[in-house]
């Protein structure tokens, strides 16, 4: 077969791919690079066992391993670390507020939590520039905050208020903004955002700019075919997609082990010929560094990166789910790896970038913001019934569609405008 495809003249330069084999093709052994930023590699096994009348999951392994330190970032300075920490706090506390609103019967439907994953959501989104794009999933409420939505936006979504970003029409993180914040609203079916974000990068490139676009997929959702189609499309088109595979060990009630046979989802990068990276998703510095490097690659027009973030979903699938199927020791193991507690320790005790007083002030500021937003959201009205109607189509005058990064410059080429001599075709 034709080997090592040269860059086609029209597509951006195909960068050397970090995951391409370095061993000679004549051997049957092939070696690939998977960058692994972690400072520990959990050794825990999960299995399905029969226990009397019932079937359940059981864990074994090194459950008492010591908690690793935060890995110092290559790129983040003091101020940035504190900012990320603040987003993480806002993320967690906002979700706690949502839980309360739910208990007060103010939330419509359920609540989804990113508990234990705040570092991943916030530090990843933090790596994007304002004119770049993000497509969040249900647990990436932190990413939405970083992109400039406010807690009240999310609260109003959950309470189905008229003032919510979707005006009551959709729930949870299902909203976006193509004007200012450059966020694509997710849909429920998993994986569909991946080609969409690739397409956003394609649109920008056609307008003359290589941008980074970021989206997420879970250990469960990455089993969907559209994940494969989308990432492969980004790879062959060399589009600046940064895909975070958030491996939080569970997809609803299904353990990650039942979604795939490989050890690390980052290994899937090999199949696309793109770089694969592993980070500890509970360490915001690792998350940021990997995200930043992937974004920089994207901006250089070198194509997509797959980053697997390892962590644990610390609640059930949504508020209705007590996650009884999860063996308790697994929660305990990961509880010790809480991203906020560890980052606090890093900032306050290790780096001493925050004095206890400054820390208190920061916490108080977050609480105050949330309280104000909560009050605003709770006081805001429900939509009118009639507001359900209309808007299915973009009508005359409703939106102006124009290129976001500049009118594409079009090369002028000679070519006949008419169909060439009738050629044979498929089915006449």
């Amino acid at each position, binding site marked *: 077969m034709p080997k090592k495809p040269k860059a086609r003249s029209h597509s951006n330069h195909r960068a050397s791919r970090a995951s391409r084999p370095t061993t000679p093709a004549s051997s049957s052994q092939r070696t690939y690079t998977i960058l692994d930023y972690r400072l520990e590699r959990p050794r825990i096994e999960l299995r*399905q066992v029969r226990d009397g*009348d*019932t*079937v*359940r*999951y059981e864990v074994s392994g090194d459950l008492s391993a010591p908690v690793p330190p935060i890995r110092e970032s290559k790129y983040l300075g003091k101020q940035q670390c504190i900012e990320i920490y603040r987003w993480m706090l806002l993320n967690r506390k906002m979700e706690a507020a949502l839980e309360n609103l739910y208990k007060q019967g103010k939330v*419509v*439907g359920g609540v989804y939590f990113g508990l234990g994953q705040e570092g991943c959501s916030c530090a990843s989104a933090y790596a994007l520039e304002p004119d770049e794009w993000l497509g969040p999933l249900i647990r990436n409420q932190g990413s939405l905050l970083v992109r400039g939505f406010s807690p009240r936006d999310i609260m109003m979504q959950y309470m*189905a*208020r*008229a003032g919510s970003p*979707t005006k*009551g*029409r*959709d*729930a949870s993180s*299902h909203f976006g903004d193509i004007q200012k914040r450059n966020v694509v609203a997710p*849909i*429920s*079916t*998993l994986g569909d955002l991946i080609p969409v974000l690739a397409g956003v990068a394609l649109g920008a490139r056609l307008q003359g700019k290589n941008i980074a676009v970021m989206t997420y997929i879970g250990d*469960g*959702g990455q*089993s*969907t*075919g*559209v994940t494969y189609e989308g990432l492969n499309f980004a790879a062959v088109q060399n589009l600046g997609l940064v895909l975070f595979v958030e491996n939080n060990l569970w*997809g*609803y*009630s*299904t353990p990650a082990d*039942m*979604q*795939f046979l490989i050890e690390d989802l980052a290994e899937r990068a090999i199949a696309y010929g793109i770089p694969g990276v592993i980070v500890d998703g509970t360490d915001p510095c690792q998350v940021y560094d990997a995200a930043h490097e992937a974004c920089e690659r994207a901006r250089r027009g070198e194509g997509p990166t797959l980053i697997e973030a390892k962590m644990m979903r610390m609640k059930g699938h949504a508020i209705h789910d007590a996650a009884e*199927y999860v063996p308790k020791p697994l929660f305990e193991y990961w509880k010790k790896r809480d991203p906020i507690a560890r980052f606090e320790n890093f900032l306050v005790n290790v780096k001493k970038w925050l004095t206890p007083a400054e820390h208190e002030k920061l916490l108080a500021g977050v609480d105050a913001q949330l309280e104000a937003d909560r009050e605003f959201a709770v006081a805001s009205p*429900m*939509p*009118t*019934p*009639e*507001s*359900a*109607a209309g*808007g*299915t189509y973009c009508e005359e005058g409703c939106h102006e569609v124009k290129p976001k990064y500049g009118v594409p410059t079009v090369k002028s080429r000679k070519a006949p405008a008419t169909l060439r001599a009738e050629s044979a075709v498929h089915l006449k």
Partner: protein
Amino acid sequence: MPTLTYLEAIRQGIWEEMERDPTVFCIGEDIGIYGGAFKVTDGFIDRFGPERVIDTPIAESAIVGAAFGASLTGMRPVAEFQFMDFIGCAFNQITNMVAKAHYRWGAPAPLVIRGPSGGNVHGGPFHSQNPEMYFVHTPGLKVVCPATAYDAKGLIKASIRDNNPVIFFEHKYLYRRIKEDVPDDDYIVPLGKARVARSGRDLSIITYAAMVHVALEAAEMLSKEGIELEVVDLRTVSPLDREAIAETVRRTNKVIILHEHVRTGGIAGEISAIINEEAFDSLDGPIVRLTALDSPVPFSPPQEEFFLPKPNDVVREARKLAAY
């Protein structure tokens, strides 16, 4: 006779079929230890083991493909979709691979694809849809939408025994809201047969699934005004019971078709055409459609209520039509 919810009735129907026939098995997401998002297969893995209660990756085309493949060896798979809203993820597999198999190469495909559909639970645009028309419009499939617990059990059993692919829509609003006496023993409700849920002489309302209860509520209200509604519950939307449709129109001469899915291209159109074909001369008034709006299902309760047809809508339209 025990009193069962609609959900328990479906669960009992599948359970009994698995007890009766070792070729029946379940496949889907989170159906094992968790028992499914709505708990329809709660306890199944304990009784039937993980061999026959297969938790899959999140891969709907693989689920349907694997179910079809297993059916070719003589198995009777029951595939759960966590929400029927996700059925578009397996659309090609269902409409091209499965639906056309018997016509093209004589392969029966005795599989059931089942899962929750329908709104009125504030599920928003992706947890409230009624995608049944896509499959009604696909020859080779049967489409079943029970409205009562009794029917739910009898129809799921009939669906599992059918040698054709059946898409079985369980209305999630009804799962735990309706309860009735359901025989403990083995019975089926045949596919393709409607039932008269309430007899009436003045006008007919043809509907199915959750809307049957909306119609019955309206009938109760109208009865007090002296308007007697006949409520026809289709039970199976493909194949449609043309006979039952024609009969009720011949009896009452006026008809409202009520459905929860969006208006354009909905089943009301098909039924209008059938009535034109079978009972045009019996019509004493225009066929009236009462449906959801032509939009996604909105999330916010006041919006969703506005979006869905309600008993009052039926009452209003019935009064108008009765006076026509």
